[in-house]
């Protein structure tokens, strides 16, 4: 049978299965192995399943995912979110829009440890929203700032999405983590500037909270220094070549456990919940990884990436034109599926195009994660928006989407800056 026809049929079947809510990893595995069996033979295809599954789950490098998930779970369970917000609030809350700026700062700190956008948005919906409302911040702004702050989880290390991108494209996980640092900090700064501009343009829109004394500020800092030092130690160790990424994750998990227990913040129940939470998420991520690798064999045998590369480069758009086209595709896909599914599904096809056009794979990882993260907050799907709505049911979707518009604009500007100046993403990895 014609390989092109099988490839096209495979993609149609894959999308149908996913729309019918078959788990993404399982749908990819089924289509990948089925297609491979049709084009090669069923014995070879069946052999691929056992070999690929076992090889993937016993790859020490991939252990980075459960280890950082466990670190995030321990730190989150220890109640760091409230402490981060309180600390940021004592320093910034007295300015107009200060509570919003403090939310962004705390989201950045929390995201850096948890590595999860959705968890960040859910957590700060309960921590920061009531406080912002208490001081008269409008619902749209308060929810918008939390949705935007949540997206920092995918960029600041350790990011699960960046780790998965690194595994699929066989890039250095450590370099990708480090590459996310400056763009992540840029995101924090730009979100803060956005809030400052809103507060400047509409002075009564975002009232200031009372100024905290220096005693209060120092007391608030006492509660957050240990987890932040752990984060700097882990990422610094990774950057300085002290640990491999998996070891950094293990050190982070062990360190977070010790800090939580020694400070009396991690109960037996907390430890239990953290272990379960890390296990569940790791199992779900590994399922899509196995599926993606099996689907990759199908893509290779049908030469789909090469054909897509030929097609896109023959359009005569130039390398930046093709890049723009790819990013537009991701923005549209962002309306339909979540970030992880998008990365798993599309990167194996798009990545060869990017390397063919001479773009840096590490830089592209940062760009693509940033683009899919926009999908977390832009309408009509916006995963973070759904999460906030589920935590704060009295706020309507349209109110939240209204609140995120200024941050979407800021993110688009940031995307432009990173495309114009790849050095922002590549400077730190180049020094490793």
């Amino acid at each position, binding site marked *: 049978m014609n390989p092109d026809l099988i490839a096209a049929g495979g993609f149609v079947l894959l999308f149908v*299965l*996913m*729309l*019918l*809510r*078959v*788990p*993404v990893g*399982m*749908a990819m*595995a*089924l289509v990948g*192995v089925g297609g491979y069996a049709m084009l090669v033979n069923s014995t070879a295809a*069946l*052999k691929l*399943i*056992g*070999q690929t*599954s*076992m090889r993937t*789950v*016993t*790859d*020490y490098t*991939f252990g980075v995912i*459960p*280890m950082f998930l*466990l670190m995030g779970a321990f730190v989150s369970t220890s109640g760091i979110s409230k402490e981060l917000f309180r600390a940021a609030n004592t320093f910034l809350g007295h300015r107009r829009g200060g509570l919003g700026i403090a939310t962004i700062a705390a989201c950045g700190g929390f995201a850096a440890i948890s590595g*999860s956008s*959705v*968890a960040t948005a859910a957590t700060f919906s309960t921590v920061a929203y009531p406080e912002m409302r208490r001081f008269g911040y409008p619902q749209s702004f308060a929810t918008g700032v939390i949705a935007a702050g949540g997206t920092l989880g995918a960029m600041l290390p350790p990011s*699960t999405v960046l780790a998965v991108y690194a595994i699929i494209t066989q890039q250095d996980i450590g370099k990708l983590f480090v590459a996310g640092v400056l763009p992540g900090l840029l995101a924090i700064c730009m979100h803060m500037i956005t809030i400052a501009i809103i507060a400047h343009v509409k002075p009564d829109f975002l009232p200031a909270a009372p100024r905290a004394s220096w005693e209060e500020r120092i007391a608030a800092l006492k509660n957050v220094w240990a987890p932040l030092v752990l984060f700097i130690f882990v990422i610094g160790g990774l950057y300085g070549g002290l*640990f491999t990424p998996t*070891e950094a994750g*293990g*050190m982070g*998990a*062990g360190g977070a456990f010790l800090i939580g227990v020694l400070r009396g913040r991690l109960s037996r129940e907390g430890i*239990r919940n953290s*272990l*379960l939470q*890390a*296990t*569940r*998420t*790791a*199992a*779900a*991520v*590994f*399922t*899509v990884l196995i599926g993606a690798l099996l689907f990759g064999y199908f893509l290779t045998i049908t030469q789909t990436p090469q054909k897509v590369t030929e097609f896109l480069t023959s359009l005569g758009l130039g390398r930046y034109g093709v890049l723009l086209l790819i990013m537009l595709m991701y923005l549209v896909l962002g309306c*339909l*599926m*979540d970030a*992880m599914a998008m990365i798993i599904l599309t990167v194996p096809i798009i990545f060869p195009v990017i390397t063919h056009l001479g773009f840096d794979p590490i830089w592209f990882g940062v760009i693509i994660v940033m683009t*899919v993260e926009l999908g*977390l907050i832009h309408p009509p*799907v916006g*995963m973070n928006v759904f999460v906030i709505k589920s935590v704060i049911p009295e706020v309507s979707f349209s109110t939240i989407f209204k609140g995120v518009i200024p941050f979407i604009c800021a993110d688009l500007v940031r995307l432009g800056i990173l495309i114009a100046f790849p050095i922002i993403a590549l400077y730190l990895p180049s020094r490793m």
Partner: protein
Amino acid sequence: MQRSLMDRFIDGIEWIAAIFVGIVAADIFISVLLRKFFSASIPDSYDFGRLLLGILIFWGIAATSYRGTHITVDLLYSSSGPRAQRLMDVFATAVLLFVVTVQTYTLYDKVQQTRIDNVLTYDLNWPTWPFFAVAWIGDVSAVLLIAIRTYRLIFHPEDMERGHPHHSEAAES
């Protein structure tokens, strides 16, 4: 009574995976500390780490498959009525059952082959196939649990509500 026993069994499977996460983290943490501060190492720390990782993932997949917390695309599902949602749940679980059953069958070959090839760990020369076998048992558990999930979704959907004591953040990114 039967149901509560079943739910405890599912919790137990999830717990096995969770304990292995803790063991892998402890293995890595202690071996890095020993290497950096005492120039010592745990024999086969690397091999144990990766083999235990395999076990935790397969046992974790068993629990995740039962609880229905895999990463999915919910576009159509979230805009459908309860009847269509139930049909989608049944269909998706049946496909999951088929894929995981085939995976379990092929993994058995892999375990057998590893035993025949007598693959050993690097330092202690321990055979690796028993670790693969424990991971494989996790996959067998996944088949059993997905079969139970399919049965419950078709005949006792009300049990599935109770069977979801924890909500996962599987789709986190």
